Every structure is written in structure tokens, then in C-alpha cells.
């Protein structure tokens, strides 16, 4: 793959909040989640557990307690972190697990985009309620919900802060001019 192709996938992914009524093939969901488990993780702890939700009734229930979940996605991936795993990384374990779960989420969203599937990462949901609805054990904390479905439209990208503003070279203050 050309580097530009990868960059175009990264740039092309959008947060989708309006979905078509169309089923995602099982093998595409599998590929999406497979991309998730290939994310890096601190000390290779792989603290994540994913709950794939395909049952439309269950999606409705989760939507009820998730103000940040817009549209009617075909599937959800509830990304959880497992305390029994991240505690092995000591005091920094929890923070690291959130970073790891985020990287897994990004992998899944990029893979989904590559398959023509829209996604949105959602943090505005009630953890207690989702835990209750999905009957999650105490060691699992749901941290991100990824909604998946075919987009009604691919929205325009919001503006990005330019590299010259975001990047400093060799210490704070000297702006990147590349």
C-alpha cells in the first residue's frame, strides 16, 4: 500500500450519526474487530474486551441510555477494559488501558471505513446502565461504544488545526514549518 493510501483512509473516516437500514455482513464485522485486537497495548496487556451487539432490541435498549448515540446503527461494539488485566500494569494500568482501548477503537473505525462502513466513537453513555443491560461482570468497565452501519452520507470533515500550530520541533516554542 502506498503511504498516501493509508493517509487517505485516515483522513476519510468520519463520525457517522445517520445510518441506512442495511445489514453489515458478518465477515466485515469480524475483520473490524480483528483490526481492534491488533492495536498496540502497554506491556502487551491487551486489556480490552469487546461486546458485539447485533440484536436490534438490545441496540434499542443501549440507545435509550446513551445520549451520544445518534441514528440507528446496525451494530455496536462496546469496548470494555478488564480490571483483572490492567491491574497487572500497576498504578499506571488503568490510564494505559484507556489509551489501549482508544487505539483498538481507532483501528476498528479505520478498518470499518476501509470496508465502506461508517462508525462513531461514543463516550456519552451511562456506564452503570450499559453494564446493567449487558450484564457485564464487575471487572469489565465499558469505556467506548462504537456504532457501526452504512452511512446515509459522509459528512464534510471538520477543520483540523494545522501542523504548524500542533507540532513543535526540538522543544516547545519552535513551530514546525515542514
Amino acid at each position, binding site marked *: 500500500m502506498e503511504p498516501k493510501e493509508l493517509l487517505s483512509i485516515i483522513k476519510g473516516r468520519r463520525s457517522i450519526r445517520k445510518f441506512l437500514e442495511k445489514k453489515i455482513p458478518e465477515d466485515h464485522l469480524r475483520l473490524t474487530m480483528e483490526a481492534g485486537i491488533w492495536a498496540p497495548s502497554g506491556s502487551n496487556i491487551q486489556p480490552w474486551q469487546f461486546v458485539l451487539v447485533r440484536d436490534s432490541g438490545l441496540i434499542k435498549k443501549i440507545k435509550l441510555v446513551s445520549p451520544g448515540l445518534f441514528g440507528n446503527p446496525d451494530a455496536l461494539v462496546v469496548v470494555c477494559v478488564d480490571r483483572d488485566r490492567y491491574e497487572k500494569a500497576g498504578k499506571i494500568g488503568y490510564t494505559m488501558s484507556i489509551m489501549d482501548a482508544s487505539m483498538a477503537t481507532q483501528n476498528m473505525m479505520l478498518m470499518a471505513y476501509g470496508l465502506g462502513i461508517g462508525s462513531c466513537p461514543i463516550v456519552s453513555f451511562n456506564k452503570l446502565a450499559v453494564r446493567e443491560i449487558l450484564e457485564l461482570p464487575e471487572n469489565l468497565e465499558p469505556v467506548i461504544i462504537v456504532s457501526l452501519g452504512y452511512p446515509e452520507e459522509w459528512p464534510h470533515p471538520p*477543520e483540523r488545526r494545522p501542523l504548524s500550530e500542533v507540532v513543535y520541533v526540538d522543544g516547545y516554542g519552535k513551530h514546525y514549518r515542514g
Partner: protein
Amino acid sequence: MVTESIIEDEHFKLLTFLIVSARGCVDEPQLYGPLRLIDAAERLIDLMDKMGKVNDRLREIRETIRERKFSVIREEAEFLKLLDDLVLKVSRIIREVPSTR
């Protein structure tokens, strides 16, 4: 007894949305509070619509919310303008009601 139909009940959906949003607002970005409120307003208009209580003016308010609510993610000023526009739209409805004295 909880029946399956309750999760399809529009009043129950709004009720749940309000409760979980209340909890979410404690931790979420400040502007998500107004976002949840106008989202609830949109849902309320949907409900009123099913009860035959929606006129063109309310439909227009609902459309305005639908089209512009995600400006909260892009541009704060644009979102605040939306909130002001909505206030104006409801104020005009109120103003046009004939005064009783």
C-alpha cells in the same frame, strides 16, 4: 411488571434520555448540557407530532435543531447562534398569541 413495549414507548424514551443526560451532564463538556436539552426538545416535538399538536412553526423548529445541532462539535459560535435562533422562534410564537388583556 415491565413489558417489552415500554422501550418503544416515546414517553419512556424521553424520560430515560432526560435521566441519563442529567447524570452525563455532571462529567461532560459544558456545551453538551444545552445539546441534550435541544435534543430533548426535538424528541418532545416528535411526541407532540404523534398527538397532533405540531404546526408548521414547530416543524420548522425541529428541522432547525436536526440540521444544526451538531455544530456543537464544529464551532461554538455557530451552536450558540442556533440556540439564540431557537429562542427567537419560540418567542415569536408566544408573541403572536393574542393577549387576554
